[in-house]
């Protein structure tokens, strides 16, 4: 069966957060944390030169949700068996089984699962599985005004855009084998966090 994945074009993303808000609206997330977040990475410094300034400042954005990883660490840690990678490749959280222990949130380096205070269980992106089964794209992809997100068969996406899936401030992809392809922003370095830092902590 097809393993789906996301192509995240950081050279097109303006960090507008439409993906996040469209998802929040469609899934009525209310007070709950978002299924998809937009990280701002920035770096560089300023050096005075008389009355003028030299700088090498840069910034870019990475939109990230659940990557339906090949090696989902959330599933490995889940004590109740609620988090399971399905045969169709989606990592699905069965909220009927979930006991809300939060282990998956501790383990996931993409911050995908989060605790819902209203429901007392964890919640997470399901890749808009129902939409995808009906031949549609996930809400976030369909919403992106800059067309920075794409969804499809990960093999196809990799053929088209290559195999890169590491960019700061994301974790090294070797941890969970995420099903994403990254088109790097011209300043987007690897995962080495010394160059660029996550700069919107309160927003993600």
């Amino acid at each position, binding site marked *: 069966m097809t393993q789906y994945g996301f192509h995240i074009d950081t050279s097109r993303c303006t960090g507008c957060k*439409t993906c996040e*808000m469209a998802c929040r*609206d469609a899934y009525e997330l209310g007070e709950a944390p*978002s299924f998809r977040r937009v990280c701002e990475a920035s770096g560089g410094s300023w050096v005075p030169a008389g009355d003028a300034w030299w700088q090498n400042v840069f910034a870019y954005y990475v939109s990230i949700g659940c990557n339906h990883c090949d090696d989902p660490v959330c599933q490995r840690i889940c004590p109740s068996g609620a988090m399971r990678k*399905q045969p169709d490749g989606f990592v699905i959280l069965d909220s009927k089984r979930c006991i809300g222990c939060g282990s998956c949130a501790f383990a996931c380096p993409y911050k995908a699962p989060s605790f819902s205070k209203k429901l007392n269980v964890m919640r997470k992106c399901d890749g808009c599985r129902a939409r995808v089964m009906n031949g549609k794209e996930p809400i976030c992809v369909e919403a992106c005004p800059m067309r920075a997100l794409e969804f499809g068969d990960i093999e196809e996406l990799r053929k088209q855009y290559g195999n890169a899936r590491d960019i700061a401030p994301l974790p090294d992809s070797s941890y969970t084998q995420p099903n994403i392809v990254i088109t790097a922003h011209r300043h987007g370095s690897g995962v080495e966090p010394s160059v660029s830092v996550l700069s919107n902590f309160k927003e993600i």
Partner: protein
Amino acid sequence: MKSSNCKEKRYKVFTSTRNDLVVQPDCLIDSEQRLNDCTKSIFGYCSVNCEGRCVLNFHVKNDKLLWVESDQSIKDGDGERQIRACLRGRSIREWINHKDRLSYPMRRVGKRGEGRFERVSWDEALDAIAENLKRIVDTYGNEAVYINFSSGVMCSNVIGFLFRFMSMYGGYLDSYGDYSHSQIDAAIPYIYGCRDANTPADVENTKLLVLFGDNTLETKMCGGGSSIHLKDAIHKAGVRTVVIDPRYSETAANCADQWIPIRPGTDGALAAALAYVMIQENTIDQEFLDTYCIGFDEAHLPPSAPKGSSYKSYILGDGSDKTPKTPQWASAITGIPASEIIKLAREIASSKPCAIYQGKGPQRQANGEQTARAIAMLSIITGNVGISGGNSGSDFETYRFFEAEVPMPDNPVQIAIPVFLWTDAIDNPAQMNSSKGGLRGADQLNVGIKFLWNYAGNTIINQHSNINRTHDILQDESKCEFIVVIDTLMTASAKYADILLPDLMPMEQPTIVANDWAGDSGYVLMNSQYLAIQHERRTLYWMLSRLSERLGFSEEFTEGKSEEEWRQSIYEESCMEDPDLPSYEELLIKGIYRRKNPKGRHIAFEEFRKDPLGNPLSTPSGKIEVYSEKILEDIKGYKLEEGEIISAIPVYAPPYFEPGAADKERFPLQLIGFHHRSRAHSSYGSLDAIRQRARHQVWINPRDAKDRGISDGDNVQVSTLYGRIQIEAKVTVRIMPGVIAIGEGAWHNADMEGDRVDKGGCINTLTSSHASPLAKGNPQHSNFAQVTRVK
């Protein structure tokens, strides 16, 4: 999809394949039901003033709005883009169902601005408005009635009824300009006869794109608008892009190969130095200047111009100021290293064609008119005007084809004020003359504004400069005697209403919308079904119809038509002008009609470039006027205050400040505003979901923050001569040292009887109401401020 052949997979599956898995708990409905099982989808749109108009499909079940989808009418591709809503449009459900949505007519009970109201019946509210309108018109005349500038509902068939209503009731004090681009709108026509520029798609034909303070990718986020067309063009042709901005804006982050940070208000100095280098190195397009322009050098000055008054003389230091505009001179002013200026000048000169655009930031300054012209000079001296891949130096143009208007008789009152001076027209009408007040149609106002209409706007308080001053003026009920506010939410402005009426959203009533900034892809949107009307909310037309009844001109005003019938007649009026438009019925069904620019893209002054004598510009000389005699003519009798500069040639004019406002001891940091993604001006400013995730923050450089002991995320107070706000700090390298930036449009929220510290963080608590000299526009980016940490 039902297959249990999962053993071959690398991963372990603990139970049999379950595609029917319940993903979300019942109370939230799983994605299958939520997204596909809606009984009805209602076509609509977001039509606030962000320069985009986006398609929204409202998924409704039993009158309950479940979720909002955007444009699905076509498949998205490079040829045709879906008109995708941004984060705001996608969050509109919170607005429509907002807990603070106005539901009933209300009458003020406390003092103005306190926000204390009591519910009244529609009859009581309308009676009060009719009585006061009649009294004020009878006492002071129609000149005392003013319709405040607003842009919350950008539909062709809504606010027009208010102007129609007032025109029929003897008229109203007219206005001109706006809060977006007053200065550039006034300035560029002195050069070209009108303000015009190329459309974004033309950028793909250029070798070098230079953007002065343009942040299209954040200010025009519509997924079928300027941002996507510009990005597509840059992306497609791999255009080298330079962005000049004090802030590493989203456009700089996304597109800029080079970012040149510049001190706010000094773009004119940079332009002059760039011109200096090009003149010195003889890389200007002399032939173009000789053929198409007047006033560049002494040989092409109009007869009335004194010697040494040409642009070239000014640049080389042969003019009255005797200062050569060298890169070193500009470096100290702009904060850009001289070598960078030289490099940029050479790059611009050697790139043929080169596209130079400016956003609306540089011009929104005191003396911003001069800056707008100064930037445009770069296009002129390099001969990039009127060609594909070049530009006039003005801001991005758009294709428009649809115009519809509520029919209205001429306004019997022929006097107009600039929109930015409405508080002056209340406070000090005697001062409102042509020099200081920009008054048109009369030498002086006979009476101040006594009756204020405010429909779907937040300019009474929030979007107008110097809120504390406006508050004081409006608190005096002897000045402005009656204020009517019609809106959907309790905005900062609504708190100042005497009568507050609950409006409907555009998707709750018959409306029609045309594209705004949409590149070369125009469209018209029209809804045929409406979200359910709740409580006592009504359309503006409904209110005005009943008022016209009370004032005795109902038949004339309504012509017996309903909202829907009016929309049809307005639209069909447009069809007469443009027979290619689909029929009303057809548009009702489809909701959207698209039309691409038949010429592909727009090249400003293309005909003039091809044949300057056959197609002269509408300037007095028919040529590009580097030296403008008209500007001197127009300001005859003006008394300029110290620092105010209006010049025949585009000189560098630094922003000026009211006494004390630029005291470097008290206010060492330059403060600018910007359009933040979380709001379209102040629209959407009260939505929690957005406020938490696209946070309202003051941007401050780590160097400035360190000096003040401020860390990222700290609460800080920003103060200017005019007021104080409280806001979260974003300590970021993305802003130039010495400069701070605050997104405009956050809702003012202060205890006006107490310390007046604005906890909503509205930048207009900090800005000056002193208008720019020529356009009488808003100089909201010319500020000096201090930041301190709040313990």
